[in-house]
């Protein structure tokens, strides 16, 4: 029962110009960034090759590209997720799902997976750029794969948080702004340097970026992957609970 909800979510997203504008602009900005770093790499290649263990095109181009995309999407995911539950509550269309033989968990997961499908398309399109280098050079396919997994995990975490925020309000604008600030705070935590060593370490562990960087460098760490999964699961469970509570409070 999750599939029809997810597919409809994706379909309705694709019916709005917003999704297409986002896809196009992200692709455009990423392409600029990509061409720029490829050019830089070409310029620096003679000097780099003199080094003992030179960074390859994967390190020079792909990792920064994915890091930039992740930061851009930090601002874009809230715009994608803002409508998911807030508008359904505002327009009272939620009662269609609530009076159908579907559980709240299925509704929330359906909405979530629908958005992930959209983001998967986006990540796929971004991956096409590094893949375009294939005919000219040998890519470190491991790093490309871990990088895209990392990017996707990051987006899953963003989306789960955005979904939760959109369940809290009926206004999509409020949902977008609040999700953005939540994600931004979690992102920035990485740079907090004050406080004792313990606090610093704790903050570092909670930060999204801290767990993203190793994946970009090509190392898949159980701790990092678990972090993203726990992050997403927490917000999904919160969303389900919130929607159930809505039914109780009215």
């Amino acid at each position, binding site marked *: 029962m999750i599939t*029809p909800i997810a597919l409809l979510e994706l379909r309705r997203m694709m*019916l709005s110009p917003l999704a297409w504008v986002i896809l196009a602009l992200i692709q455009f900005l990423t392409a600029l960034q990509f061409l720029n770093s490829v050019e830089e790499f070409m310029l620096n290649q003679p000097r780099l090759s003199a080094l003992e263990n030179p960074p390859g095109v994967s390190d020079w181009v792909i990792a920064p590209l994915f890091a930039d995309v992740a930061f851009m999407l930090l601002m874009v995911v809230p715009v994608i997720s803002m409508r998911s539950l807030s508008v359904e509550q505002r*327009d009272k269309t939620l009662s*269609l799902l609530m009076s159908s033989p579907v559980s709240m968990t299925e509704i929330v997961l359906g909405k979530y997976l629908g958005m992930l499908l959209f983001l998967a398309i986006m990540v796929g399109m971004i991956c096409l750029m590094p893949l375009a280098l294939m005919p000219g050079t040998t890519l470190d396919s491991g790093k490309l794969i871990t990088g895209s997994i990392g990017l996707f995990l990051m987006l899953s975490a963003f989306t789960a948080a955005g979904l939760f925020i959109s369940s809290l309000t009926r206004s999509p604008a409020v949902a977008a702004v609040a999700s953005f600030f939540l994600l931004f705070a979690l992102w920035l935590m990485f740079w907090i340097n004050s406080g004792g060593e313990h606090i610093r370490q704790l903050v570092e562990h909670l930060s999204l970026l801290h767990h993203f960087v190793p994946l970009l460098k090509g190392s898949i760490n159980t701790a990092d992957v678990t972090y993203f999964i726990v992050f997403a699961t927490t917000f999904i469970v919160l969303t389900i609970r919130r929607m159930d509570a809505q039914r109780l409070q009215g």
Partner: protein
Amino acid sequence: MSELLKATSLTRYYGDYRAVDNVSITLNAGDILGLLGPNGAGKTTTMSMLTGNLAPSHGDILIKGCDLADEPKKAKQSLGYLPEQPPVYRDLTVNEYLRYTARLRNIRGKAITLAVSKACDRTGLDQVSRRLIGNLSKGYQQRVGIAQAIIHEPDVIILDEPTVGLDPIQIREIRDLILELGTRHSVILSTHILPEVQAVCNRVNILHQGRIVYDDANTETPEHKQLIVQFGRDIDVHSLLELSSISNVIRQDKGRYVIQHHSDSSPASTIASMAVENQWGLMELTPSEMGLEHIFISLTQGEEQDDSRDQNAEQAA
């Protein structure tokens, strides 16, 4: 008759405010039950609870024997609900939307197309099935809402104010549709419009301030009909009361009486001949049903209304 839906002592609080108080509703197979009440009586809250959109503070709901709280999926499978505002996605076409709702109600594969065309057929949506819901008129959107509620052939259909905001022709069409639905499904219909209940329902519950104040299954409907008579002058009421078919005579105004009589025999001709005999100067003799309107108004407007009417009568006298 089998009970399709049984709600016992439903109560619902919003904070401290008790919107619905100890409401019990039974729906039997073949019923079109009208839930009648003034605005704010708790109709929508009751219906939201019956369809699982709101959790009741107290009370149980059984749909075809399945508890809505314990087995929500099973119970909701036999339920179709049209909320006050049709839950349609304006950016989809009628066809797309109905296919989605069919899938949500566990219809699979080729059966989907069949169910959609059947629902479109019954609700008169064939002509518009490829149009965007957002571009349809309110009446058609309402039909899409009804089509969504009947697509899986549920036993119980719950319609919340289905004719609100429609023009008179659309209202008549929707009423005909509800009557048609009643032949195959059981329907609960909420409304604050009296003629609507009289036109389509075979059973009535009246809801007032969150309570069921009238249930024609339990409450004795008065076995009376009445005649409204206008004579040229006041008459001796006792001579009328001597007639065995007359149960009560109420003086309304100078020479104007409401004569209540048993429903089986009308004393109209007897009264007419008596009037001629005694030269009462008969001007009007109108039979009228002691109907729902009387019950509705007296129950929902309480004593104040009756008092003021009596006062008017006294002043006139």
